[in-house]
């Protein structure tokens, strides 16, 4: 009986650790494909792929810590944007998440006096990580975006 309790307890612990370790799970994602799929959740604007050389100055991440990144940005009419970043080390994903959150906060304060309707989209911004990958998605259809991310292991 005691052995059974210990076994169940160990199994439960293992399950908990697996569930809590979402940021370090083994995930392999084609960032370009994921970004393009997320692009379908934006209907109010024409987003364009921004030159990757400019991404560090837009999102302020350290270039040395990033393996690859792709971003689709707005024409200037809306707050919609999609960014998918692969860090060199999964431990850096949390730092990228923070930078994305800062980006969203900054955008919210600017859009509040420019186009208040866009602030709702920023409030619903999706910032998620899986392994070394981090996603920022400000879009029109967040439910669909969540489904897409789930499919990719987020």
């Amino acid at each position, binding site marked *: 009986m005691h052995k059974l309790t210990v076994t169940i307890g160990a199994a439960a612990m293992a399950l908990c650790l697996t569930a809590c370790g979402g940021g370090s799970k083994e995930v392999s994602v084609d960032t370009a494909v994921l970004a393009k799929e997320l692009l379908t959740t934006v209907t109010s*604007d*024409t987003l*364009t792929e*921004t*030159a990757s*050389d*400019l991404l560090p*100055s*837009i999102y*302020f991440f350290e270039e040395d810590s990033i393996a690859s990144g792709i971003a689709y*940005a*707005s*024409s*200037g*009419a809306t707050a919609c944007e999609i960014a998918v970043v692969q860090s060199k080390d999964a431990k850096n994903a949390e730092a990228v998440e923070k*930078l994305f959150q*800062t*980006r969203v*906060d*900054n*955008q919210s*304060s*600017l*859009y509040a*006096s*420019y*186009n208040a309707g866009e602030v709702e989209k920023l409030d619903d911004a999706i910032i998620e990580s899986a392994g070394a990958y981090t996603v920022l998605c400000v879009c029109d259809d967040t439910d669909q975006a969540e489904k897409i991310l789930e499919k990719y292991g987020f």
Partner: protein
Amino acid sequence: MKQQKRRRRRRQDTLVLKLLILVTLVLVVFEGRLIVTMFSHHSQMTAAKLAEESNGITAVDGTITESESEESKDADAAPAVTTGDSASPDAFLAGLPTNLGTPSTGSSAQSDRLPTVSNPDSAAIVPKTDPPVDDSYFADAVFIGDSRMEGFRNASGITQGRFFTSVGMSLSSMTKDAIIQTADGNITVAAALSGGVYNKIYIMLGTNDLGEYDWNSFRDGFISVTQRFLEIQPDAILYVCSVLYVEESKVDSTQYVNNANVDKINSILLEVCEQEGYHYLDLNEFLSNGYGSLIEGATSDGVHIYPDYCKQMLTYLKSHYVPVEEPDETEAETETETESESEDSEVSV
């Protein structure tokens, strides 16, 4: 019998003829727009006249009044002068002639186009320069501007340069508000500008100031803030981008955001450039439909241009720049020698 047959044939012939006339009439009436579009590709003049006939959507004299703008709410469905197909990079080239390098008053082919600047002969307007530069020219450049400049950053494909942009940037907010994003929150434009060394400053400002009717105040404020920028970056060349035209039929409220105001604010910006020795980039040279308005179909909301036009803007900037003359080595040597000689002579005295 023969006579009856002939009569029948004549009746049939008449019927066929009537049917043909009817079909022709239907084609003329209902396919008129198609014909207009076809002709617009062949002749700008013909297109202008036909466009004028068809509901008077584009005022040929270029002065688009608010009432005219309201009447043209359904301009999308009407025979625009251009095709408006933004998906194609050359879409806007198909409708009207554009000439990226020639001043608006140049060749006879452009003589029917309205000038996009108040003083086409101004020395402050940056002419086309050969050869075009590549992206490395922008490595030491900073781009300051509103959402339209931000759209340019996002969609033009530019790979170099620093962008201090903000949606809703106006003269007032550019002067004093914390609107430039950093990793630690927003800061002012001046603070952001102080963080590096830049040899070129591009400013695109004015769309959010179109409701500013105290134009003298705008002029003074613009001079003040640009002088401040040049204090921070004393070696920089300052380029002032024209305010881009808008598609009035798509703008929510044309009370302020209209092309008459765009022309007005651009005339002020050009005057400031002449007065202060800045360089004016007449972007409407390639974005104008020829009649004092933005090319039809260039935006979704009347203000923010589609990626294809952002790419064209980058091409324009690469071919419109102020060449910096490299100091001639022999001249430099001569100057050094002269200086040393004069120093010697001063010592000897």
